[in-house]
């Protein structure tokens, strides 16, 4: 074809003039990237350095760490969101998510409230080693466990278990301190009375504010205890709420609480769309999880070979992500609950167990990708990071 036949098209002259003009008027845009990066850095920083400015003992097994920014403003967050905390402990680089328990309008610091998990790597480090003045690495707040004004009811019913109180603490503090027009019924389960985190503060808030109701539920109470006991069940929910209309339900706690409470809510006729759950880490004992193949012992050893990389020993009962981190291989991770897909790896050969319902994209499943934070080796594997 002849070059530039469009020069013969009707209207070419005008377009040519316009092009010439735009060459002269053109604007240099090379700063755009910097501007955007700066802005996004204030919203979703990839790295956020925090200094421990206070350590507050909440219960014998729980501490609040008050974290102030080192060289930047703290990014805004929605009550209910968490931050990933990075740490290097005994030579292992890893991270764990912690919900922010302070309220979002309090922009000077983030509180995180940590409960000791027996044999837990990071919780024990945070409880025992970290002191005022220490620096911690984090990243911008994340997560979708927040009140959504577009479709959530103004009456929130919150079920917390143990350290699962933290996101609700942030929400309740925001509501009372900012005078928001919302109502909360908090039903908070714990094993013993002295495990109840924020007990005095919650009681005092409930006394002072009509729109906040606080019901502690103690699984194993002392004989003299007169409050609600046992598990959070349908009868209790019914008694506290009366009817289920115009309420949105929020759950945050250990897997056992979901397994028990969700059917109870269903039996009360609460629609699925009215229930929000925070995923709170991998199942504590994967071998008890529905679908785990019988006959595979959690201690069983396998090998994982990484494409173009090394071969490492793993065992069946440990999430693949954790085994990789132990060997100095650190795939990015944020939620460590199977939700965010950051830790996605491709399994080239071999089988893993991934709990049913893990939100993996359909085509990822089809091409062998798994979320390594909730994937457990059932055979020798070959993977691609």
């Amino acid at each position, binding site marked *: 074809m002849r070059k530039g036949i469009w020069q013969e098209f009707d209207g070419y002259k005008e377009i040519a003039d316009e092009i010439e003009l735009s060459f002269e008027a053109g*604007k240099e845009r090379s700063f755009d990237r910097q501007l955007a990066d700066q802005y996004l850095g204030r919203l979703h920083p990839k790295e956020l350095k925090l200094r421990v400015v206070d350590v507050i003992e909440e219960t014998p097994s729980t501490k609040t760490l008050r974290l102030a920014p080192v060289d930047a403003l703290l990014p805004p967050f929605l009550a209910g969101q968490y931050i990933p905390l990075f740490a290097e402990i005994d030579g292992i680089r890893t991270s764990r998510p912690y919900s922010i328990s302070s309220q979002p309008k309090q922009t000077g610091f983030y509180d995180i409230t940590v409960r000791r998990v027996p044999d837990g790597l990071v919780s024990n480090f945070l409880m025992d080693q970290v002191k005022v003045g220490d620096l911690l690495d984090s990243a911008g707040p994340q997560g979708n466990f927040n009140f959504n004004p577009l479709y959530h009811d103004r009456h929130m019913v919150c079920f917390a278990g143990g350290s699962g109180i933290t996101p609700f603490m942030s929400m309740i503090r925001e509501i009372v301190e900012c005078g928001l027009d919302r109502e909360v019924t908090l039903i908070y389960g714990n094993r013993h009375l002295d495990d109840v985190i924020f007990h005095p503060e919650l009681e005092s808030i409930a006394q002072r504010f009509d729109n906040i109701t606080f019901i502690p539920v103690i699984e194993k109470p002392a004989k003299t205890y007169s409050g609600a006991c046992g598990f959070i069940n349908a009868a209790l929910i019914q008694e506290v709420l009366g009817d289920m209309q115009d309420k949105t339900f929020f759950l945050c706690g250990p897997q056992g609480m979901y397994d028990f409470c969700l059917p109870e809510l269903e039996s009360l006729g609460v629609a699925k769309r009215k229930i929000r759950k925070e995923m709170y880490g991998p199942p504590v004992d994967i071998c008890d999880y529905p679908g785990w193949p019988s006959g595979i012992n959690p201690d069983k050893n396998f090998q994982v070979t990484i494409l173009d990389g090394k071969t490492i020993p793993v065992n069946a009962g440990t999430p693949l992500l954790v085994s990789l981190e132990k060997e100095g291989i650190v795939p990015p991770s944020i939620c460590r609950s199977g939700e965010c897909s950051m830790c996605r790896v491709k399994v080239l050969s071999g089988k893993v167990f991934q709990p049913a319902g893990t939100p993996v994209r359909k085509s990822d499943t089809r091409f062998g990708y798994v979320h390594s934070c909730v994937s457990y080796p059932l055979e020798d594997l070959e993977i691609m990071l």
Partner: protein
Amino acid sequence: MDYDVVVIGAGNGGLTASATLARKGQKVLLLERHNIPGGCATSFCRGRFEFEVALHQLSGLGTPEKPGPLRMTLGSLGVMENLEFVEIQDLYSVYMPDGFTTCLKPDKNQTIAELKEKFPHEKEAIDNFFDLVYTYANDMIGAFIFRDPEPSRDKYPNLYRYALRNAKEVLDDYFKDPLLKTVISVYWGYLGVSTDQLSFAYLAMLLFQYIEFKPFHVKGGSQALSNAILNVFLTAGGRARFNCGAKRILVEDNQVIGVETDQGDTIETRYVVANISPMETYTNLVGKDLIPNNTLQEMNSRILSNSAFTMFIGFDCEPDELNIRESTNFLMASTDISRSLHDRMGRVDIQDELMVMSCYDISDPTFSPPGTCQINLVTLKYGDPWLTIPPGQYHEAKFRCAESMLKRTEKIFPNIRKHIEEIDIGTPLTHMRYLGHPAGAVYGFESRTKDSFFFQPGNRSPVDGLTFAGGWVGDQGFEPTLRSGVSAAKSILRQMNS
């Protein structure tokens, strides 16, 4: 040499470039900042839903009996066996605030009949307009697709007359009814410039393509497409590194010699495919000093396109309970097709802009889990104004805009709010963050008539070994960007052989 070619960015263009090169025996490394391939062509999960990010209607695929250009491209890449395409049964519906609606079908005669029924006073004009669209498209195909060595005004009269006219002028010439003009031109929303600046050629080709080759979607969404192409690439021996961006392109004596990653290592190579913007490539990766002035001037003469504000909504019921009957719905607030429509994209707030609502479950009932459905509700917005919102007010702005969008949608589909199970919202800042493109632009440079097909600079760069792929150096959209990667790969293979 570590690799024959390094491809920067795993968007549509980067993926097809990588796959084509690897299948031709080249040693290729694909670098992607994000942890997943696709760029715009991706999805994410919330609750029980997997939300589609970008794809509303795939163009240019065609049926097996009457294949379009995209089917041939994907076929030659060997990805078709891993994909299941779903034909969308409607072209689009338009909803007006006064209750007017019309649903057009991807069939010329049915579309003309429907328009004539709704606009009996414009019967003749409708026939004439579609004649023009079709003869224009045939001229274009004859001259440019089949590369006629001797094109002339006699052979292609409508090409010569209409290729450089803007769409609004042509619509004004043909029609009187402003509503009809609005209905026929809603596809400007897929191109990002309002009809007064849009080239008629683009509007005509888009209508022609969607009607002749039918609109499609793909099972598993656009992520399935991205994953399938990546899979072909890996199977052919290609290597991909995710969570690893390119930081610099190293150049010596005007020749690419390597790429430095943001993890700090350097990869030797003599060829790079950049599936990212020329701005990012020239100013941040190569360095402006090494780029001739006229190239920079050309780049600066173009205007960055809009970004988008998108709501992803999952419902706990089937579409018919929401009264959603068609896949692709344009929700319009007025019959204004003038410049002011375009200006609205420069405001943060949402009031009366064009909105597209796609419900994938209509054509593919397996798209969302049984008993549920999802919509993707999008409007075009420039990115810059979002950078003026104080970060502390970002969430509030996001919810405020989403509320306006939902209110407008509710007027037409009153049941939607009470069935919402999941919502996520993407703002122009979300696009900046995930794509890394300046101003969160989702359509590359704006495609005004002066930037159309004929005047685009093409995929070559002044640096030896550096070639572009994707929407920044050609037309936007799935079909053009997927094909652009193949062209970039072929261009590199030619350079290697010469």
